[in-house]
């Protein structure tokens, strides 16, 4: 039975010149877990908004066709009626939380439904336990981190136990641990309680193993609607940027069918006689006792990458030649915790460093100290020149009415925005805004000695990430030290030659990306997990697979290769 049905839906936002959805017809059956894939602005968010009733009731515009959610026609029923059937989690957690305490936030949708006190209390308790936020119930929502806010907002969406849950990039603010945990939770909701889930996500590798179907969108249209493996086979030819790293690894090695996750990929390698895991058991230290709490403690995610990645105090010479030096930097909040604990770090000119770690590990604070936005409570920060810092949200940099007033022509030319000087900055696309923000911080008579970026890939599709990585390589080639705080191991592997892993305000691993990103459970690329840490990115992994397969074939000439 269809829980969600779109029939020939075409929708144009008020004032827009082109439709955001074009003749979309699809159904989602009860109990399905469906992933929406597509590049930025392909129509995924609009489709979710149509399913939640926000389109057209809240956004206005022109809607043709019909959307039925749990039997409710959204032409007749607004989002507040649809909310009885569907819980919705939109992109920005900051504006997804409307009340001042977590308990009130979780109770809010239940109270709106007219539930009695007992049902409200039970709904709050169950949502809090399901999401592991029971300890936050009496905290003020203004005190929560981005990741905590995201979980609270999801809790509010789930509190009424809706039959359908609509989620728009729910893991974009989360570290790899919390992101995996969220997908695990959605899978549990889907499997144990039969909740239907429709999830828009850029990082498909996270959710494809849990998905029943993938709907790919491009330019407002459904271009593929298939099971994960069939979707990946389609993406290999029609839309390579939607491939997961594992699928790209296999595609570049010329192997079929594409695996939908690490487990399938490993099985395929074993079937081909390539057991890379068994040959490399010493790289990664696994959690000994995860217990009932799915979120591992610090020690459990700690990377055992040998001495190559042990954090050390930089030598005197390294500090003297560095573009940026943090010398025993502490940041201790008044009446609060220490966010940084004696961080020693030196980054050389032209070096590309990725800062990783779970939410709250101190990455953003470290970058703010580097840029002089914060002063250490103990220790010193020294930079050889100007530190340009791009904070998380590029919109925060936009202060003027015209792109040309935000930065000089040279700076705009350097990021390829010289053709939009007369446009309003807020009319630019997400990727363009980020380039503009980069132009703003890099603009100036003196070249930046250090370029810092805080979570620059949030909500970016793969091709935009690739373009940003290229730009950062260019800056490093020009001599700038590049330091990027990111939760995205694939992006870190693409950009950085060195990775610093932070936990509780101090580095717990600092070494070459090939070591740090190869030897962990959470802070490792998908390719590294498949190849036992021998390669970080699909292109390198494919070369390795081809070489190993060739060597094995030479050794066992004539053996038949089974297909998984």
């Amino acid at each position: 039975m269809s829980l969600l049905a779109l029939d020939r839906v075409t929708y144009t936002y008020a004032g827009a010149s082109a439709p955001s959805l074009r003749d979309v017809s699809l159904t989602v059956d009860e109990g399905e877990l469906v992933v929406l894939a597509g590049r930025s602005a392909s129509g995924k968010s609009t489709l979710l908004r149509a399913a939640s009733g926000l389109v057209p009731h809240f956004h206005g515009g022109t809607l043709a066709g019909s959307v039925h959610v749990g039997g409710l026609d959204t032409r007749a029923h607004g989002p507040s009626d649809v909310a009885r059937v569907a819980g919705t989690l939109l992109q920005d957690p900051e504006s997804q939380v409307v009340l001042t305490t977590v308990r009130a936030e979780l109770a809010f949708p239940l109270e709106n439904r007219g539930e009695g006190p007992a049902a409200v209390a039970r709904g709050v308790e169950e949502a809090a336990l399901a999401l592991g936020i029971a300890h936050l119930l009496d905290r003020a929502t203004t005190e929560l981190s981005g990741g905590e806010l995201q979980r609270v907002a999801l809790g509010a969406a789930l509190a009424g136990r809706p039959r359908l849950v609509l989620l728009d990039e729910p893991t974009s603010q989360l570290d790899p641990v919390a992101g995996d945990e969220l997908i695990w939770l959605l899978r549990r909701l889907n499997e144990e309680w039969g909740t239907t889930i429709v999830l828009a996500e850029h990082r498909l590798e996270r959710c494809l193993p849990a998905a029943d179907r993938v709907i790919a969108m491009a330019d407002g249209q459904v271009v593929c609607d298939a099971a994960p493996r069939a979707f990946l086979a389609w993406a290999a030819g029609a839309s390579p940027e939607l491939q997961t790293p594992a699928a790209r690894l296999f595609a570049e090695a010329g192997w079929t069918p594409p695996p939908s996750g690490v487990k399938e990929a490993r099985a395929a390698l074993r079937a081909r006689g390539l057991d890379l895991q068994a040959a490399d058991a010493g790289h990664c230290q696994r959690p000994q006792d995860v217990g009932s709490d799915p979120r591992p403690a610090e020690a459990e995610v700690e990377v055992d990458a040998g001495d190559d990645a042990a954090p050390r105090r930089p030598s005197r010479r390294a500090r003297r030649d560095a573009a940026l030096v943090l010398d025993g930097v502490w940041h201790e909040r008044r009446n609060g915790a220490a966010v940084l604990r004696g961080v020693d770090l030196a980054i050389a000119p032209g070096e590309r460093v990725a800062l990783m770690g779970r939410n709250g590990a101190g990455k953003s604070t470290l970058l703010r100290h580097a840029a002089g936005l914060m002063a250490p409570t103990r220790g010193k920060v020294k930079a050889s020149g100007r530190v340009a810092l791009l904070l998380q949200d590029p919109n925060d940099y936009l202060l003027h009415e015209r792109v040309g007033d935000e930065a000089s022509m040279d700076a705009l030319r350097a990021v390829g925005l010289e053709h939009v000087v007369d446009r309003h900055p807020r009319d630019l696309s997400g990727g363009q805004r980020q380039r503009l923000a980069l132009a703003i911080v890099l603009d100036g008579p003196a070249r930046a000695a250090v370029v810092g970026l805080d979570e620059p890939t949030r909500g970016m599709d793969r091709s935009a990430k690739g373009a940003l990585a290229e730009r950062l390589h260019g800056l490093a080639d020009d001599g700038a030290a590049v330091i990027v705080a990111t939760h995205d191991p694939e992006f870190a592997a693409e950009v950085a030659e060195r990775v610093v892993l932070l936990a509780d305000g101090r580095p717990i691993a600092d070494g070459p990306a090939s070591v740090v990103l190869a030897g962990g459970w959470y802070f490792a690329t998908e390719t590294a997990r498949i190849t036992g840490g021998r390669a970080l990115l699909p292109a390198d992994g494919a070369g390795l697979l081809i070489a190993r397969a060739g060597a094995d074939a030479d050794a066992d000439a004539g053996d038949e290769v089974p297909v998984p």
Partner: protein
Amino acid sequence: MRYRRRASPLHAARAAAGGAWCAAVAAAALSAEHPLVLAALALVVLAGAAGAGVGREVGKIVAWMVPWALVIAFVNMLVVRDGLTVLARLGEVPPFGQVDLTLEALVYGGQFGARLLLVAAAFAIFTVAVDPDDLLRLMRRASVRSALAATLAVRLVPVLAADAARIDEARRCRADGGGDGTAARLAVLRAVAGGALDRALDVAATLEVRGYGSARRRSGGSGVPWSRHDLAFLGSAVVLVALTVASRVAGFASFGTYPELHSSGVVEAVVLGIAYISVALLPLADRRGIVR
């Protein structure tokens, strides 16, 4: 200055009881005439704030209000010509004309300033110690639309404050430092205001998908049993109001300023002051079950 859940009897009381207690203290302050009664109520708000663990926040408001209270007393003395006890004759002072500074005008102004200060302090306690979500829940039962407007406003304040902090930080990251002083502040303000509509729409969309528009009135209360603190603060509020009304009706502990200072006696003021202190502070003495 905003609400944060703390371990205190006032925080442990439901919003209806805590709000009623603050309103009763404010009403008593507005009604009080005798300086001794006002002093007793000052003790109530300061000890009450300390007992609720919000002494620092309320202290800041009091410190900010004290100069205003003094200004009120001084201005009243300049502009009011009533009163027989002349402290000083200033002659012709433009724009006030002939100015005689009288004791009565000074006391009246001080009395008025003290009332204002106490009301501000009572509402400061209300702001930091009474759960706004609980209040909005009460309000929703009375009027969904008004509660919606209040919810949006309450939520938008911290959201816009956070936006302003982030935008200001981004301004400081600009290659030119983003300017200084008023121009920089104006640029940030303009950017925050420019984004305020988008923010309001985002929050409103969230309210919609949480089912706000279909809000159904629920019969009965919140279902949470009345705690000792709920009962104590509500009882205290009722007795405070009763004391206030009774003292006004009976002219008990009265104090007049014009044409000369006159009062019904120190004993009456002391009795009323002690009654206010006892009744208002008693609920704060019960520290059982205050941690949630």
